[in-house]
């Protein structure tokens, strides 16, 4: 802002002062050199505020005509600091450009402080502010998705307001939580009840992701799954900057699987009648309520009925600025989403206030506080049921109300629109009050120079309420009202003492941390039913004849002490050692504390004398780290055997009964991760090619897992420390500048991650745990199942081919391989011995490719993401034979008949999958994830309007997916009929957004 104003002034002055010569145009020549005198080819030279310019040739020379003396030339080149030169009287310029090597001066947040990027010994990935600004997201992790190596972000749900699932370096723990630890401005939101969804992406200045043990050691127990550090924006001491960002977008289903035609549906009914004897109400239709529409030739597209064009909009205004001793950043944000399925709504309103005050020369205090309101109100249409509805089903009764069961007498699937007649409220308030005080002791007493103390204190309160009433419109004749409320109170206190000492080329810094955390959660729930009518809903629950209440509370606490020493010599040799001691309430008495050391070395090869002349190499750094970290990610109270209360009537009145609930483990202790990381950061040709390569290995031991027990013991599972896993991986980030001319630039960025995990030990006896599904030498999540090799055909059964293979087989059954028997050879029957490990549930590798094309003021960004090597049971296929004779279904899933003896699809016989094959398939996919076209309005136009910056963009998300998956989406989260959580059935969406970023 200040710069812009200055330019306007300068510009204006020149215009007045030089009015005599201003119109005179001339030609200018020159040469661009580096600090060492080498010429630099390919430098972009532009007349500021225009698209007029040229590019330096192989010798660094350039010529530019039609310039005026008041023009300012902007010299830019990737990896160099930008240079501006006012033309003035000059006709021949010699311009020297300095390296702007990433990592030399750049300071990044590393946890309990900052560090020069060049001095970091750990593996840290950053998400550029540019990416955050240019890709409109409702959730910050969407911007990280696929853009950072080693971080896998799965958008398991597109439901407005739901956070994606994040995994750093493929997890490694078997059943303990694998979510990374999220810290905002030094205060964790993870484990304190918060969600990544509580952060307004517009407020974010930077995101750093700490991946290896050295980087995460500082977070100890919380670092095992990686750490995501988010820094929010702060003001600068200048005139106020007012910024508006907004976007408006539309959403639609990314993919609608083709449903069967009506003819095909009737054929399926008929086949069900033939093979299972399933009744047809009035052939060819199956159900009573289909008769009328069938006879009238009337059909309903139920998917269309439950869907709508999704709309999302976001408006964010921020004001930042400050004076000498005070800076501020205040923002307000409104996000409003209307989902593609009716009733799925989300509103998020947030306010953030970040204030830093330099109270005295030695004391700085500040606050980074936010209030967020989430609203997910709305009666949600049931997509699962819409998918099942016959096109001949009945939508409305004569009185205009929804028909409860459109396929009546089938009552398994109610009208998908019924829930839209209710108006549940789902609301949540998060209040995060964070503050800090920062003391520089050197300003109090000179000899203490380098010693600082920082106190971070954060308190968060999360209040939520869900209210629901169901009445006659959803066939709840009694009427049922429920209200659930919950409250989380959490605080974090951190005392951070730091000492920095520089002498000659030696740099030492010491950090000590003492912190404590506590979270207290409580929830209560009330239900009432049997109301006189539906008028009052949940607002007067005592009007229900029958009511019940419940409540629950728990507490979590942790204490940590940490010490870290960084030493560097001449920014060439880097050394970090960290020791952290963590105590967590979740472990057994006497097992609560764990100590986790780590050590790391770095060598900035580029800074060595012998590299001084290696002009082509801009950056070269080797990193080596080794460390241990702990994982405590199990729920509270797992060390106790507990009883649960239940209700049971005796003699017509309710009694309380006690039953065993969970088996406790009084030996429960830390899971430990020991990891080793070797990394190389590189940059060549003035960083036209740069990136980093990391290889790592990690061993998790004493894994916290839910071990299956024989139920004859009275319990089915217990949480225990068992076994070891080993993970090896490689991560690559590569950025290249492919073309750089005056008006056209093309940058590419590739991220690639590959990791392989295996279980190396379970119980020390060299045996697998088949009961729990764990196998030595195999990854953690595997699919162990039969090998399907086709479908049993009639002639095979007639020939008796099945008798020595699978004697129970019938024509049309799934044919699985007889691989083995109790003696290790095929035994002529299909048993558990024939199951083999078919694949793993986690992807083998993931990749992302971003191409950015810039032409004049236009920037086009294309991001493609790929996920390969994972396998998943396809429940759509799994349930098919049991259900497609009586509901609508996907056209792609077929079935076997004697006339059409498919070798792919089984018959509609209810027992055509007698061995319970799970139909696992690869869910590989490649997605055109984002395309964004951005236009920066030229500066000279803005200047006239007094605007500092204005850009407009058009962005598309989830534009196309290449996959063989049958269903809505390879990442879909779906639940089949019979489970209560049907609301999670929500399709992947395609979004097109128009946005604007305006800075005054």
């Amino acid at each position, binding site marked *: 802002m200040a710069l812009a104003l200055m330019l306007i002034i300068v510009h204006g002055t020149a215009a007045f002062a030089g009015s005599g010569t201003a119109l005179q145009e001339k030609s200018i020549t020159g040469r661009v050199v580096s600090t060492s005198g080498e010429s630099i080819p390919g430098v972009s030279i532009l007349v500021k505020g225009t698209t007029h310019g040229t590019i330096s040739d192989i010798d660094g020379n350039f010529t530019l005509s039609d310039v005026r003396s008041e023009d300012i030339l902007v010299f830019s080149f990737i990896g160099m600091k930008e240079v501006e030169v006012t033309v003035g009287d000059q006709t021949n310029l010699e311009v020297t450009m300095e390296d702007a090597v990433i990592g030399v001066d750049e300071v990044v947040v590393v946890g309990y402080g900052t560090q020069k990027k060049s001095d970091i010994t750990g593996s840290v990935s950053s998400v550029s502010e540019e990416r955050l600004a240019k890709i409109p997201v409702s959730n910050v992790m969407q911007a990280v998705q696929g853009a950072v190596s080693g971080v896998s972000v799965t958008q398991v749900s597109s439901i407005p307001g739901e956070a994606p699932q994040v995994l750093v370096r493929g997890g490694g723990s078997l059943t303990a939580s694998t979510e990374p630890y999220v810290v905002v401005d030094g205060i964790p939101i993870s484990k304190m009840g918060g969600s990544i969804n509580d952060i307004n992406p517009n407020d974010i200045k930077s995101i750093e992701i700490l991946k290896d043990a050295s980087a995460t050691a500082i977070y100890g127990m919380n670092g095992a799954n990686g750490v995501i550090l988010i820094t929010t924006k702060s003001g600068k001491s200048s005139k106020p900057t007012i910024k508006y960002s907004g976007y408006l977008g539309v959403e639609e289903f990314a993919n609608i699987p083709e449903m069967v035609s009506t003819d095909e549906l009737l054929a399926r009914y008929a086949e069900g009648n033939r093979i299972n004897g399933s009744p047809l109400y009035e052939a060819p239709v199956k159900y009573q309520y289909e008769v009328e529409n069938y006879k009238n030739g009337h059909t309903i597209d139920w998917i269309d009925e439950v869907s709508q064009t999704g709309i999302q909009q976001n408006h964010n205004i921020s004001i930042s600025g400050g004076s000498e001793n005070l800076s501020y950043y205040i923002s307000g944000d409104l996000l409003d989403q209307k989902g593609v399925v009716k009733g799925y709504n989300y509103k998020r309103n947030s306010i953030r206030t970040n204030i830093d005050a330099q109270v005295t020369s030695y004391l700085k205090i500040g606050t980074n506080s936010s209030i967020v309101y989430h609203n997910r109100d709305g009666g949600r249409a049931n997509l699962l049921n819409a998918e099942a509805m016959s096109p001949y089903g009945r939508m409305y009764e004569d009185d205009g109300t929804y028909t409860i069961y459109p396929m009546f007498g089938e009552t398994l699937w109610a009208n998908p629109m019924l829930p839209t007649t209710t108006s549940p409220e789902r609301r949540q308030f998060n209040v995060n009050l964070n503050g800090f005080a920062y003391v520089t002791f050197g300003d109090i007493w000179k000899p203490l120079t380098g010693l600082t103390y920082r106190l971070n204190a954060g308190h968060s309160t999360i209040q939520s309420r869900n209210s629901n009433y169901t009445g006659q419109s959803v066939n709840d004749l*009694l009427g049922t009202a429920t209200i659930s409320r919950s409250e989380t109170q959490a605080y974090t206190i951190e005392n951070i003492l730091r000492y920095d000492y520089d002498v000659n080329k030696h740099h030492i810094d010491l950090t000590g941390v003492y912190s404590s955390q506590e979270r207290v959660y409580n929830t209560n729930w009330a239900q009432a039913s049997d109301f006189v009518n539906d008028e009052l809903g949940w607002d007067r629950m005592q009007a229900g004849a029958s009511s019940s209440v419940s409540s629950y509370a728990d507490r979590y606490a942790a204490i940590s002490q940490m010490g870290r020493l960084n030493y560097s010599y001449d920014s060439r040799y880097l050394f970090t050692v960290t020791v952290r001691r963590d105590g967590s309430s979740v472990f057994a008495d006497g097992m609560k504390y764990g100590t986790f050391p780590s050590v790391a070395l770095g060598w900035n090869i580029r800074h060595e004398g012998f590299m001084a002349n290696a002009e082509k190499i801009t950056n070269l750094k080797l990193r080596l780290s080794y460390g241990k970290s702990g994982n405590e990610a199990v729920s509270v109270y797992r060390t106790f055997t507990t009883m649960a209360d239940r209700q049971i009537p005796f003699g017509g009145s309710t*009694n309380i009964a006690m039953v065993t609930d969970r088996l406790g483990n009084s030996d429960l202790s830390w899971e430990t991760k020991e990891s080793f990381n070797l990394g190389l950061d590189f940059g060549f040709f003035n960083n036209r090619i740069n990136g980093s390569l990391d290889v790592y290995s990690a061993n998790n031991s004493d894994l916290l897992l839910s071990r299956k027990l024989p139920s004859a013991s009275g319990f089915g599972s217990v949480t225990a420390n068992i076994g070891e896993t080993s993970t090896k991986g490689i991560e690559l980030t590569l950025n290249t500048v492919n073309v750089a001319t005056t008006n056209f630039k093309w940058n590419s960025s590739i991220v690639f991650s590959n990791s392989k995990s295996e279980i190396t030990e379970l119980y020390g006896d060299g045996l697998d745990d088949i009961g729990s599904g764990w196998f030595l030498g195999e990854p953690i999540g595997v699919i162990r199942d039969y090998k399907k090799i086709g479908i049993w055909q009639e002639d095979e059964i007639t020939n008796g081919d099945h008798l020595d293979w699978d004697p129970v087989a019938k024509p049309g059954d799934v044919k699985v391989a007889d691989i083995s028997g109790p003696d290790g050879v095929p035994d002529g029957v299909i048993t558990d011995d024939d199951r083999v490990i078919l694949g793993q549930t986690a992807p083998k590798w993931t990749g992302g490719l971003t191409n950015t094309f810039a032409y004049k003021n236009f920037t086009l960004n294309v991001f493609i993401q790929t996920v390969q090597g994972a396998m998943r049971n396809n429940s759509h296929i799994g349930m098919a034979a049991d259900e497609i004779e009586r509901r609508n279904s996907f056209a792609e899933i077929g079935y076997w008949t004697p006339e059409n003896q498919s070798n792919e699809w089984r018959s509609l016989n209810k027992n055509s999958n007698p061995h319970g094959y799970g139909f696992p398939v690869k869910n590989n996919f490649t997605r055109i994830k984002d395309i964004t076209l951005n236009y920066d309005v030229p500066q000279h136009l803005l200047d006239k309007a007094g605007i500092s910056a204005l850009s407009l963009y058009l962005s598309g998300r989830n534009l196309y997916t290449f996959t063989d998956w049958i269903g809505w989406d390879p990442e879909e989260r779906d639940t089949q009929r019979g489970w209560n959580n049907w609301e999670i059935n929500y399709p992947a969406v395609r979004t097109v957004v128009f946005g604007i970023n305006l800075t005054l």
Partner: protein
Amino acid sequence: MIVMALTFLAISCSEDFLDETPYSSYAPETLTDEAGIEAALKGLHYNFGRIWTWSDQQGWAGVWQDGTDVCSPGGVQGVEIPFFKYEDLNSENAAVSYMWSMCYLIINNANNAMVAIGEDGDPAKMAEARFFRGYCYNILATLYGDVPLLTEPTSSARTDLERTPVSQVNAQIVADLKYAAENLPDITGTVSESRANKHMAMQSLGEVYLRLDQPADAETVLTSIINSGLFSIVEERYGVAIDVNGDYFSDMFKFGNQRRSEGNTEAIWTFELEYNKGGISGGFTNAPQQRRNWVPAYHNIPGMTYVYDGVDESFVHPYGGRGNGRIRPSNWVKYELYEDGDIRNSENNITRTFYYNAPGYSATWGIDANGFRVAADSPDAVMVKDVMVGDTALIAASDTLEVAYPYTRKWDSFDPTDQWGWTNIKDFPIMRFGETYLLRAEARLKNGNAAGAADDINVLRDRAFKAAREESGNSELGKVSSSDIDLDFILDERARELFAEENRRMTLMRTGTLVERAALNTESTIKGTISGISEIHLLLPIPLSEIQRNKDVLWEQNPGYN
């Protein structure tokens, strides 16, 4: 803020900062007082209820009936398929593992309760815990043979369980049930209705003695129930349904009529499944599927509906509420089992005819040569008929499989506020005095006293033929004599008396007669026919997951299973 921080710091430094105390759960060791022990004993009933209220696999009820002499599959769900297509029965069947794990859940809870009660504790409380332990081990021994015998609560993870020889398990069962029979109060003395009484333990013990081939002991214990004077055979109409269609036999199975306090003098053990109304919560834990299994899906006949508004406090529905028709009586039951005049086969107890009940219904249908409904313009129609509300409903040929068949009324269950009927709301009759006579008849037969057995059977027949005798004037109608009695006859009579009430599979496994009795059920339909049955099916397989999870001791699978 610094002050605040220091305050927090002070708190966090306190010694017990990291200590855990569950706020919202009880620990077993805190339940050792009187009330805690009572709650733990009630918990045994609760978990027992979970066995029969299971709805995750809706075909669960069919598992115990299909593939025997008495029942055939209707609209199958899946879990029950291997119980009539026996070649498919393997150790991964969900029913096989559910019954196993529920029994052991109750056993571990009982062992917990016993520790809480203590050796010197109240014998009546100890007896209730031991009753459930013995009862569940009896199920396990009957179904699985050798099973792990655990008599101590599990306090830490175990994967080293041994299968105990069934003879040892039987000894524990007898000891538990004897203790229970001696120390439980009689049915009039329990804390509240439906809690364990000594006659439950005695009836159970009688059945165990029969399985162990100790008929003398069986007769003794069963006789003491009969001679207790506390129970009597229901021979007169009673209770809430007295004003609606029915008879004294059907009265015992009506909502609001099943408990002793409601007038049912045959009730030894009625599991309360409260209708969730009037402040009574609890009861059905899942969504018991009995009605949906036993009642046919008659609402699929055009002109028939399960919707019924003429409900008073009796909660009686003319057709029993909405069914899914998963279990059908076998042809043997439908057409051969009953003699004329047997009230247990009356239209009130086994309904065979439907009358159009959809308001305003009228239609024109064709009737084919076999008397089945076809379209009026069908070439198969041999005649055309106009029908309307109140007429006998015409059924289509395929309707006999799950839509319209003769069905038992013991599992009627109608909730006017949930007419489409997700869940059963009626009590479960677990033990009835009528069965006591059947068990004693079996004991007496084995003791060589066929005449005594005939006497016991005649007690039931005097009731069953009471009305017919009055009507016909033939006081000998339905009477049996000692020459009629053999084990098959007793099993037939059990079917007549206890159809849809007893666990037929367990009865036939207990008596070792499953294979030959299943041969009576010869019907062959598209829904499934009994196949692949052999002597190996006198035991169920041990659940595969149990074998795999118990990794430190290898268990042999029961013979014939893989």
